């Protein structure tokens, strides 16, 4: 009970914007998970690639910002994993990850 109260009243807790900003970033992770069942042709290479770099940078930001924001770090770590996975699915779908001999000459 005391732990719960400490969380509620924490300077990075749910009464503060330091909490809800990171929670909204979980939206990217949830969208990524929802899109895992989509065929790779439907994925956007632009957006997925950008999100990979974005979450990597913000993991560092979350660690260095004051107050240190573990929630933000966790939400970006989760997003990084799912976006890297989606990027690999997209790349395989385009034929970028095949060994050179097998690569079809007309793949774009």
């Amino acid at each position, binding site marked *: 009970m005391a732990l719960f109260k400490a969380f509620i009243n924490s300077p990075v807790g749910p009464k503060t*914007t330091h909490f809800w900003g990171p929670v909204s970033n979980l939206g990217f992770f949830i969208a990524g998970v929802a899109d895992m069942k989509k065929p790779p042709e439907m994925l956007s290479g632009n957006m997925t690639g950008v999100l990979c770099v974005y979450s990597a940078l913000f993991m560092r930001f979350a660690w260095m910002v004051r107050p240190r924001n573990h929630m933000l770090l966790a939400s970006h770590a989760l997003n990084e994993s799912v976006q890297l996975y989606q990027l690999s699915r997209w790349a395989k779908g385009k034929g970028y990850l095949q060994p050179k001999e097998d690569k079809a000459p007309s793949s774009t």
Partner: protein
Amino acid sequence: MATSKLQALWNHPAGPKTIHFWAPTFKWGISIANIADFAKPPEKLSYPQQFAVTATGIIWSRYSMVITPKNWNLFSVNLAMAGTGLYQLSRKIRHDYFNEEETAALKE
């Protein structure tokens, strides 16, 4: 005089030597990727992803005005995200829900 001002910027605690600069700056990539995807056919857009972009943009626009110091760079980048996300959502919704009537009328 100009060089000392530039030096001040260069050595700023939230300047280009730090993650506090690059993380928000790179976030523009999300809006740029989304603008590149304006050319994509609406069938290929992802509702979960665009909803995440829009919601994150709106929530973080507020977040950036409530933290100390106010972060106008973060504010503008999130406003742009919300804008591009809303546009993509409107494109997809228009295609999914308002074109059906046209195609149904054509078939008759």
